[in-house]
């Protein structure tokens, strides 16, 4: 009887019914430390000083108000796309289309900013932009939601395809035509600058009000899922379609509603990026896979709306830190590897939160002892 297979034979994995709070908070922290330790080995192997590298990382993303503002600003759209994915995935409706819905939200938001009278009071202007962005996201999601609800079309495919359509449309508006969005005064294709009344006010430095809006929305979505009858329906459908049908819950209506909420969140993210960061319809700055990253964030947050916020911030911190690491001579491949390592480790750590690992008493060993 060889030792290793016998040992594996004895490993018992049992799901935990209720992971404790300390476990939920402690395991991700330990995972982060484990990733940094493994990362240090890699850094040494590639000839970098791990202490200097980690200090640079920390300085760039979390040390001082400027660094924190940069990180939180970058986290803002990620919180929203993370929520968009989380709310839909909760019902096991896989909206992969936050990317495209975000573009459509940005297009609608910038259109309203440019089309409405410039001297409109800022609160009115901003409300119109955000609602317009949300509506555009809802409509774009609707192209996938309606067939899904009534014909059972696979939303993974339709939402994914619609992303490419939305990207092409946005590129066309700036690079492919002299559209309403394009600034005619410049020879290089660029979006028209939006008026000051359409720019989100700052909370501190370059951090804009959008971050607060995203956090408030996370709390609202959390409450909606947890405490409303709508949330009850979503959770039931997400757990078992058959149980939902048994309870008389209408799955098509819920599908439309959830896809609308998801699309609205992604659309708002687009409008907020235009209003708070790019200040014009800027395809290059918007098409940085904010929508797809949201899916990863939702998954790591285990689809918990409040969990989305810290995970988005962590990811934003890793990303903002990445640039500065390159500036001290760490190769870009190593930076990406470190980023992946941290994320992988935190995600994999979830296994230990939801499962208990133990060893079966050594029955097998006793049996084999005669050999």
């Amino acid at each position, binding site marked *: 009887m060889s030792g290793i297979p016998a040992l594996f034979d004895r490993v018992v994995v049992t799901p935990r019914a*209720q992971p404790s709070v300390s476990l939920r908070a402690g395991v991700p922290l330990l995972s982060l430390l484990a990733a940094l330790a493994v990362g240090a080995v890699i850094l040494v192997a590639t000839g970098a000083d791990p202490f200097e590298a980690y200090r640079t990382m920390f300085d760039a993303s979390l040390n001082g108000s400027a660094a924190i503002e940069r990180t939180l600003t970058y986290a803002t759209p990620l919180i929203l796309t993370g929520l968009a994915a989380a709310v839909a995935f909760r019902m096991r409706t896989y909206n992969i289309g936050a990317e495209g819905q975000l573009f459509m939200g940005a297009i609608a938001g910038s259109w309203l900013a440019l089309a409405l009278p410039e001297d409109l009071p800022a609160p009115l202007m901003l409300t119109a932009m955000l609602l317009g962005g949300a509506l555009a996201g809802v409509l774009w999601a609707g192209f996938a939601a309606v067939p899904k609800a009534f014909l059972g079309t696979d939303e993974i495919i339709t939402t994914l395809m619609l992303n490419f359509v939305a990207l092409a449309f946005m590129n066309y508006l700036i690079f492919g035509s002299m559209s309403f969005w394009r600034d005619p005064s410049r020879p290089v294709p660029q979006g028209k600058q939006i008026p000051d009344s359409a720019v989100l006010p700052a909370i501190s430095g370059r951090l804009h009000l959008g971050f607060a809006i995203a956090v408030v929305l996370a709390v609202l979505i959390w409450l909606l899922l947890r*405490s409303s009858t709508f*949330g*009850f329906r979503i959770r*039931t459908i997400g757990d*078992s379609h*058959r*149980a939902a049908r048994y*309870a008389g819950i209408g799955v098509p209506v819920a599908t439309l509603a959830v896809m609308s909420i998801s699309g609205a969140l992604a659309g708002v993210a687009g409008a907020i990026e235009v209003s708070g960061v790019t200040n014009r319809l800027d395809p290059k700055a918007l098409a940085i896979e904010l929508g797809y990253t949201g899916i990863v964030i939702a998954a790591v947050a285990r689809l918990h709306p409040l969990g989305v916020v810290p995970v988005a911030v962590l990811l934003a911190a890793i990303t903002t830190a990445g640039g500065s690491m390159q500036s001290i001579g760490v190769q870009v491949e190593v930076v990406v590897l470190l980023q992946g390592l941290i994320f992988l480790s935190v995600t994999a750590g979830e296994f230990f939160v939801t499962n208990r690992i133990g060893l079966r008493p050594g029955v097998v060993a006793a049996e084999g002892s005669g050999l």
Partner: protein
Amino acid sequence: MDSPAHPVSLQVKDLRKSFYGVPAVDGVGFDVVGGEIHGLLGENGAGKSTLCSMLAGLYRPDSGSIVLDGDTVQLRSPDDAAARGIGMVYQHFRLVDSFTVAENIVLGDAAAFGRKARRGVEERVEQLAAEYGLEVHPSAPVWQLSVGERQRVEILKQLFRGARILILDEPTAVLAPHESDRLFEAVRLMVATGHAVVLVSHKMQEILGHTDRVTVLRAGRNAGEGVTNSLTTAGLATMMFGSTYTGASDDEPRALHTPGDDVLAVNGLQVTGDHGRTAVDSVSFSVRRGEIVGVAGVSGNGQRELHEAIAGLRSSTEGSVTIDGHDCSKLGPKQRHAAGLAYIPEDRLGTGLAPGLPIEHNMVLRSFSRRPHSRAGWLSSAAIAKTSARLVRDFDVRGARDGMPVSFMSGGNLQKAILARELTEHHEVLVAAAPTRGLDLAAAEAVRNHLHRERDSGRGVLLFSEDLAEVLDLSDVVLVMFKGRVVGSFARPDVDIEQIGLLMTGAATDEPTSAT
């Protein structure tokens, strides 16, 4: 074929296996030697599949022994069982569609890959196929094959790997009659070359027609055995379904009320099954207040489709369902519930309960959108917790903890939770599908008591169960379903168990029998 000096022999002694404390196989023994076909007969849930899985190395027995050629063996894995010459042909094929027949046959055997090896394999497969009349093209991809051909591939796979004992689990369930005949010809040839075959089935005719000896299982135990030639259908039926039922419970006080008006009426119902075939074929019957109507039948004869159609989870193509005087034929599950239908689905975890959600959530699955559980679209967690605690207490549901997914609870407690929810809500008729399946004795008894109480309180009960003894014990009227039709109806006290057993297995004339 290699011809061993002694014929292969397999003895199973007092094998036991429980799942979560519920015994599935509870002391079974039988033996088979090379050159014979041994039949394992039993109803669904009698423990046949669990027994086979232990012989195939998939499950480890809790106790008991498996003796192969005189040596007690521990089967650690399917690979281990295969290496010792035990080959299992499952009811659901385990083939890779996009691979060829030969590739499937050598799957898992790395040495057999590569072009040269493959040619050898194909030749050997062709040889075996010819030898046993299991014709199939070795280089054809599996997705092109018919169901019968796929089964031949499964059998060839086991023969190729040198199986000396072949276990066939319900092999004819998926076959057309002429394919079944071919299969049994092949089985005969295998036996003639010294193989031992274990034929697992719930069809009496098949066992009588094709085996040398039979072991009958009931509720995880041996319920009888014998040489096939000496057995009769009636004798087998008694072994399968039990002879303990003597009508003695007629002496117990029965319904307090004489049956009243119809509370559930099904008329000419026609329902299509999952595979597009007619699953329920012009079924008509009614359930009156103060009576339990039991539906007996081997599972898969349209019972599931029938109760799902009554509950509104499956649409019917023709006919009507009337609940407490309301025509509900076109209504959904929620409206039928409102009309007075309580429903205990067959699938406890998944339909009756949302498995990943906690008890509080599941207890208000029907009533969450009404007061006091919610107001203006917002849930009242206090009211929900109160209702949940009350139901848990009243129905003695154990093992529930706040926030814990109900899937961690035992089957008996899950069923009590469903009963608690369904019976506390307003209802006039209860449809219960396999309500005691997999429960331990105490939990099953608690469920039966609830059914009695429902009847005695003047409501109607429609009971579906694979356990014939239970149907006979509880019901005032017994309906027998076979191939989607109600083929018999017996009102107490004129219940003829032998006749019911024959009707269930399709052994009786197909003319509907009625003793009402």
